[in-house]
């Protein structure tokens, strides 16, 4: 089993601690970290970091591991500016950096006065503009955030990889089918999986139900869940949301859905699940410890202990 990577997501006051975590993961041979884009908004009026900036810091603090934005939101910067920052990270990292790009979420973008375009033409135009703006630069591999087959096919066509946020295990085949034969050997297939270490399976199931229940409220996820074979769950969740019934929302998430989208249980179960994901074709399996509200850095290292 290859070791998994991790999502790094520091809260203010923990920013240096998270860089220390990256250094330790690097020393211990973990292969990669992804730095997400943290939105500024109602809950966090100030963005606690920016995806590419955090990548810069992690690159400077580490020696071997791959570092990627996971993902940078296209609407947060003009394409030429994104290309420049990406080329900068690529150069100072000796090629350890990959640029993960996503179109973000309409609801959040609107908060900032941004009217988003349809995702597929927007991403095609953005990547082309980025490449055109940097004719003399060496740009890093580009990875597109992809939930549904359309974006997966676009990633196969114009990018060097794709990253899922909460793909179902059985859904990986959709991603693999979108990769052209000529690109398969070097194509990055990343997925961010929520991980919850616990001895009691029901505790892990309850966590996943709360998490996926929250995803049901996000505009792009229900459509993806349907595409991934969870239409019944989406229908039940929709009914629960209509009557604002939180318990019913959580109950709408089936055991099968929780098992397919999360990694939870004891150390042995977690290692087995990581192997399953890798065997399915995910070559950048990335664990998220989003459940750790306070000690995010410590939680990552405790999960990492499972894989030493």
């Amino acid at each position, binding site marked *: 089993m290859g070791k998994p990577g991790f999502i790094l997501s520091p809260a203010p006051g923990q920013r240096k601690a998270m860089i220390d975590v990256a250094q330790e993961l690097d020393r211990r041979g973990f292969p990669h970290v992804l730095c997400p884009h943290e939105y500024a908004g109602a809950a966090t009026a100030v963005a606690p970091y*920016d995806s590419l900036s955090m990548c*810069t810091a992690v690159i*400077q603090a580490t020696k071997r591991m791959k570092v990627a934005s996971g993902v940078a939101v296209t609407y947060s910067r003009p394409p*030429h500016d994104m*290309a*420049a920052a990406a080329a*900068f990270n690529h*150069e100072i990292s000796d090629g350890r950096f990959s640029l993960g790009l996503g179109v973000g979420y309409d609801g959040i973008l609107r908060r900032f006065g941004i009217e988003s375009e349809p995702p597929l033409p927007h991403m095609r135009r953005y990547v082309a503009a980025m490449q055109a703006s940097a004719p003399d630069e060496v740009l890093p591999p580009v990875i597109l955030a992809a939930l549904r087959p359309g974006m997966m096919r676009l990633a196969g066509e114009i990018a060097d990889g794709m990253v899922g946020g909460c793909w179902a295990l059985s859904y990986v085949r959709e991603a693999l089918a979108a990769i052209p034969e000529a690109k398969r050997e070097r194509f990055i297939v990343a997925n961010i999986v929520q991980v919850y270490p616990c001895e009691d399976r029901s505790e892990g199931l309850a966590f996943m139900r709360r998490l996926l229940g929250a995803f049901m409220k996000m505009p792009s996820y229900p459509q993806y869940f349907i595409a991934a074979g969870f239409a019944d769950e989406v229908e039940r969740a929709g009914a629960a949301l209509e009557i604002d019934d939180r318990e019913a929302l959580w109950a709408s998430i089936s055991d099968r859905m929780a098992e397919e989208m999360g990694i939870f249980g004891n150390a042995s179960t977690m290692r087995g699940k990581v192997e399953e994901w890798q065997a399915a074709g995910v070559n950048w399996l990335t664990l998220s410890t989003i459940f750790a509200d306070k000690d995010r850095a410590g939680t990552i290292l405790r999960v990492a202990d499972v894989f030493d």
Partner: protein
Amino acid sequence: MTKPGFLFYAVPGQRKAMIEAAQELDRRGFPYIYCNHGSARVIQEPSAEEKAKGVAQTYLGTAWTDGLSHSLAIGMATKQITIGTGIEVTYTRHPHEMIGIGNYINEVCDGRFILGIGPGHNEILRQFDFPIEKPLGHMRRYTEEMRTAAAGQPTPPIIFSVLRQKMVGLAGEIADGVIWANAVLSHLPTSLKQVPAEKRDRFIVANLAPAYVSEDRGEALAAVRIALTNYLSLTNYQRYFIEAGYEEEVERARAAMAADDQAALAAAVSERMAEDIAVFGTPAQVREKIEAFQAAGVNQMCLSTLFHSENQAKAILRVADAFD
């Protein structure tokens, strides 16, 4: 004389060398590094109509990187030196994101960061379809949004890129300092009168001056003239230089641009103007000029070597030798 700082550019192919140069400056006790937002390269000539309006060049192409990324990389590689953006263009980021990243850099660099922001140059912004607002209103709104969003959080000092007195006055009202690129020495006392007296003690006054060290004064003067020519082509600089008493030079530059005469454009920069803005000559002359800027109120004097033909990292370290 306090040692000067330096302006850094993340030139493609030299980015790691620049970080190593920063480490060396840090070891040698230089106090500041400001990182530029490397906007773009000139690849198109303007239309005749644009030229008549004083627009010399159209900008498009690869940015070298944002000043924030470069500052962060240098901050991570150094221990004592103060780092800042000199400057980051406001239009490239939402204010909540700008201050969030500023806070991030400040935290991971143990409070060594200064967030320099400015509205950029219209000639460049137009190429990227940014909706441009009037500079004073834009900077007031943008800064208020940053301050409101970050209320209660540790935040780096915020300084404004300035040229003319109104922006200095606005910075005096709502910012923690100012940063010029090419401040006119003789005009500094007038400009700095805009800063409220009660703020002056702790107010950051930074200046990025073109610097060229040489025993050959003719060579040095020719080099800084070329550096200043680039700024003379920008309308906001033309207005500043007029305010500072260089109307004749601006008129000559506009005529040279209209005639597409590069030699006349370089000649438009008078020796008096070059002396009043740039730092050049022998090491002793360079040190003396820096002292003059510091005496005029610049408390973070920084040198720019971008116009040097040699490798940037080497150029910076060679100029730094004049101060050890």
